C-alpha cells in the first residue's frame, strides 16, 4: 500500500497518487483507498438520491462515466473503475468528489478556496469554479509567495481562531493561464484528463501541512455589468451571505445535513479575518490589476 498525507489525513492507498504528499507513518491510517466491487445501490433509510449519486450521513455512492466510487464512515473509499477508463480521470473525480464525501462524513469543513502563505498565517481566495482562485495563487507564487492550497482548504475552528490545512500539492490551471501568467506552457503529460486543456502544476517541495491561521479572505467574482476591477471590504453580515456560498460540494452538505456546523464555522471565519470582495469584468485580462489590489492589502507599506 502507498502511504500519503492529504486534506489533513493519513492515507493508505492501493492506487498510486502522484498528487498526494508521500508520507511514511506507522499508526493506523485515517483513510484507506482500495480497488474493488462497490454496492449496486444504497438502501439505508433516508438516502438522498441526486443525479448519478446517492448520499446518507455515513455512505456515498457516485456512478460516473470513468468509475463508481463508494465512500463509507469517513475512513474508506472503494473504487470500481470502468473497463476503458484512464487513470488520471479516475483520480481526478476521486480527489474532487469522493474525498469531499470523506471530509463531510468526518465532520470536517471543506471550503472552496485556494490560499497562499504569509509571514504568519494564510490569505485565502474563495469563489466559484472559474472565478480565478488557482490563477491568483499562481500569480502570487510568481511574486514570491508560497502556495498553501489549491481549490480546497479544510477549516478547523478552535475558539475564536480559525485555522486551515491544505488539500494536496497540485495546482490545476487552464491552458490560457500559462500565457497570461507568463509561465512556460505545460506538457501534454501534465494534463489532468486526456481531453481537457487543464494542467497540473505540482509544488511538493514547498508544501506545508501544518495548520495555519486565516488572516485575510478575498472573495473573487466576475460579471458582465461592470467595466473595471474593484475591491470592497465587506461587513460581517454581507460577508457571511457571500462566504456560505463557497462551501465545497453543497449537495453533499445538504444531503448529509451538515448545514448547521458549516454555517457555525463560516460565522467564526467571518469574525476572524477581514474580508474583501474583488469584482472583475468578464472577458478581459485583468490579472495584473487583481494581483495589485491583493498585494496592496497584504503589504500595505510597500
Amino acid at each position, binding site marked *: 500500500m502507498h502511504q500519503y498525507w492529504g486534506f489533513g489525513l493519513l492515507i493508505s492507498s492501493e492506487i498510486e497518487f502522484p498528487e498526494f504528499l508521500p508520507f511514511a507513518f506507522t499508526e493506523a491510517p485515517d483513510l484507506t483507498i482500495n480497488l474493488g466491487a462497490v454496492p449496486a445501490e444504497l438502501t439505508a433509510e433516508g438516502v438522498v438520491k*441526486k*443525479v*448519478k*449519486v446517492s*448520499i446518507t450521513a455515513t455512505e456515498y455512492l*457516485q456512478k*460516473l*462515466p470513468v468509475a463508481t466510487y463508494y465512500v463509507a464512515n469517513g475512513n474508506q473509499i472503494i473504487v470500481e473503475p470502468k473497463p476503458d477508463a484512464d487513470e488520471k480521470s479516475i483520480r*481526478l*473525480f476521486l480527489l*474532487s*468528489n469522493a474525498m469531499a464525501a470523506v471530509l463531510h462524513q468526518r465532520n470536517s469543513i471543506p471550503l472552496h478556496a485556494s490560499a497562499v502563505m504569509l509571514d504568519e498565517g494564510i490569505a485565502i481566495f474563495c469563489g466559484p*469554479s*472559474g472565478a480565478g482562485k488557482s490563477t491568483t495563487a499562481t500569480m502570487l507564487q510568481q511574486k514570491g509567495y508560497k502556495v498553501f492550497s489549491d481549490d480546497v482548504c479544510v477549516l478547523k475552528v478552535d475558539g475564536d481562531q480559525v485555522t486551515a490545512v491544505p488539500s494536496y500539492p497540485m495546482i490545476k490551471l*487552464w*491552458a*490560457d493561464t500559462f500565457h497570461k501568467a507568463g509561465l512556460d506552457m505545460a506538457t501534454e503529460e501534465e494534463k*489532468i*484528463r486526456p*481531453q*481537457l*486543456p*487543464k494542467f497540473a502544476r505540482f509544488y511538493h517541495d514547498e508544501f506545508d501541512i501544518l495548520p495555519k491561521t486565516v488572516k485575510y479572505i478575498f472573495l473573487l467574482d466576475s*460579471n*458582465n*455589468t461592470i467595466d473595471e476591477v474593484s475591491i470592497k471590504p465587506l461587513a460581517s453580515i454581507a460577508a457571511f451571505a457571500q462566504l456560505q456560498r463557497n462551501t465545497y*460540494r*453543497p*449537495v*453533499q452538505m445538504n444531503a448529509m445535513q451538515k448545514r448547521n456546523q458549516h454555517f457555525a464555522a463560516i460565522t467564526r471565519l467571518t469574525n476572524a479575518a477581514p474580508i474583501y470582495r474583488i469584482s472583475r*469584468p*468578464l*472577458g478581459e485580462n485583468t490579472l495584473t490589476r487583481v494581483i495589485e489590489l491583493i498585494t496592496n492589502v497584504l503589504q500595505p507599506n510597500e
Partner: protein
Amino acid sequence: MNNGEATEQKKIVWLASYPKSGNTWFRAFLTALLNDGEIDINQMKTDGIFSSRFIFDNSTDLDSTYLYDEEVKDIIPEVFCDMAGWYLKKNLFIKIHDAYAFNTENNPIVPTEPTRCAVYFIRNPLDVVASFANHNNGTLDEAIHIMNKPNGSLARQKNNFNVNNQFRQLMFSWSGHVESWTAPEVPFPVLVLRYEDMLHNGLETFTKAVEFMGIEVEPGQVEKAIKASNFERLKEKEKEKGFGEKNIKSESFFRKGKSGGWKEELSAEQIRSVITHHKTVMEKYGYPTEMPEISTETSEQKG
C-alpha cells in the same frame, strides 16, 4: 389547445428557440404575467436556461468544468428530471437554445419524463441575421455562416475549454433547429409562435400561448403583461441598469425589436444565401422567399 393542469411529474415548459427570436421578450412577458405587471429584467420569474452550469452542478454533486461536453449531454436529461422532482413550484419555465438533439447514449438531451410542453419561437431568419450578429459582436457574414452550417453552436469554447457559466449548445443550422423541435417524433406538445405575430397580433398570440401552457389568468391580465413587456420598455430598462444576459462582447441585448429590417441591413448576396439555405422551412412558416428588388446602394457588400 390547452395542455391542462401541471402534474407533479410533468411541470417543465420549454421556451425553445434559435437565438434572437423573441424568447427573452416572451420571458419578460411571463415575468410580468406572474408578477402583476412588474418586471426586473435581471430577475426574471422564469427558471433559468437548459445550458446552465449552475443548475447542472446543483443536481449532480460534480464540478462540471472537469467534464467533456459529451459527458455533460449524456447526464443532462437526468438533471432536469431531478430539478422537476425537488422544485415545489407547479410550473418550471426553462429557456433552451439547444436543438432537440440526441446524446451518445441515443437519448434526447431534453428529457420527456418531466416535460409538459414546449413553446417554440420562430422569427424570419433574414431578421435574425443582424440581431444575431449584434449578439455575437460579429459580422453579418459570420452570423449567416453559423445559421447555414449543419452543426452551428452557441457558447462553444475554443480547444475544449469548459469554464463558462453556460455549456456549449448545439443548434444545427437555423432550419435544422426549427425542424428538430417541430418533428413529429418530439414526444410532447409543441406550440410554434411567430415573432412577427407576437409583434403585430400580440393579444391573440400571447393569449394562445397562455392557454396552451395551461396558466390560469384573470381578465385583463394578459393585456397588462403585454404592455409591461413592450419592447421599448425592455430596452429602456437595459439602458438604465444593464442586462446580465447580454453577451459580454455585445453593445446591448435589446436592439430594434422590429420585423422586416433585413431589407435595409442585408446585401443581395446575403439575402440570397439565407433564402437558398432555408427556403423550405421559411415557406412552411409563411416567410417570403422571393428575392426583393434591391437598389444598387443597399446591395453593396455589407459587413
